[in-house]
């Protein structure tokens, strides 16, 4: 039997285990393995080697598995509640900004009227309005978002304090 037939058989044997071979190649391989004792032994060893991997069945420790499950569950819950908290903070900030702007628009005219009654220069009352009405309101609106940073608390990428 030509040497290249044995090489081809081993190549096909490996390929059949790893990625599969065509029907024609399978027929050729089966026929060759039946005739050739050496390649038959090689095929048997290959099959045994693959089966041997099933011999290593590791026993599971149910307590360890449950512990991992509980840790992962509680982390998932923590991340979800942290995510919900961040979402509600953003919504609260948006509402606060909206109220600041609409409140400023509503109070603008009465203040302009009062300033004219007291003969205040428009620059003065407008600067006072921005400094004592708008800026504090906007600061309070944004404060919750930067609370952790301002308080010096560290947080991980998911918003959870570590």
């Amino acid at each position, binding site marked *: 039997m030509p040497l290249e037939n044995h090489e081809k058989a081993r190549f096909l044997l*490996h390929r059949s*285990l*790893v*990625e599969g071979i065509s029907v024609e190649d399978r027929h050729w391989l089966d026929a060759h393995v039946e005739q050739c004792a050496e390649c038959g032994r*090689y095929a048997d*060893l*290959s099959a*045994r*080697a*693959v089966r*041997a*991997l*099933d*011999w*290593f*069945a*590791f026993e*599971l*420790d149910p307590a*360890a*598995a449950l*512990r*991992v*499950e509980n*840790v*992962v*569950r*509680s*982390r*998932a*819950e923590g*991340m*979800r509640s942290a*995510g919900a908290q961040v979402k509600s903070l953003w919504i609260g900030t948006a509402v606060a900004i909206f109220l600041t702007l609409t409140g400023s628009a509503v109070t603008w005219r009465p203040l302009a009227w009062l300033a004219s009654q007291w003969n205040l220069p428009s620059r003065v009352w407008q600067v006072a309005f921005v400094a004592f009405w708008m800026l504090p309101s906007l600061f309070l609106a944004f404060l919750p978002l930067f609370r952790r940073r301002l308080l010096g608390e560290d947080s991980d*990428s*998911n918003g959870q304090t570590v």
Partner: protein
Amino acid sequence: MVALVTAFSRVAEPESQCIARALRRRDSEFIGRMVSRYHYRLLRYLVYWTSRREQAEDLVQETWLRVLEHAGQYNGRLRFEPWLFSIARNLAIDHLRKQQAATARHRMCPEDEASLNLPAPDFESPFFAAARSEDAKRVAAALGALEPIYREALLLRFQEELSLAEIAQVAGAPISTVSSRIHRGLSMLQASLGGGADAA
């Protein structure tokens, strides 16, 4: 009607999409079931990487925590297993690198050598612990002697039944490299079995 269509689309939705959605929503019930379902396979994969049962158990938990952290990166278009194993693989490699660095530091300090008490691989090997027969012990020795990348390739192909492309995705290596790793790993196992048969 809309509810019916929604319900039907959920039923028809591939599992990978369900997993991706549950991960994004941090659905603790679903994630808990997944941890339980994949526990053995993940543990086995990490044992094949680290050759140490205790380390593998620690890494299983770390893997799931990292899955939660990077949940947004899994889009459900591909199967979940290769993604899960690739996360576990990165952790195992980091762990082994740290271990090697620590070992190297100990070796550089002769006064610390006495305190270096690394277990002998053969006796601590989980493969030996699991081996029930002489044949299994021979294969355990061969597995223990193989580098983790070859053990990994064998496990993913023949026990996890991943395709070559999926194994390549996990290992971050070309398909041809994965194929040759499987070939080399199988050859080692064949040699151990063949040697045993000859000896018998």
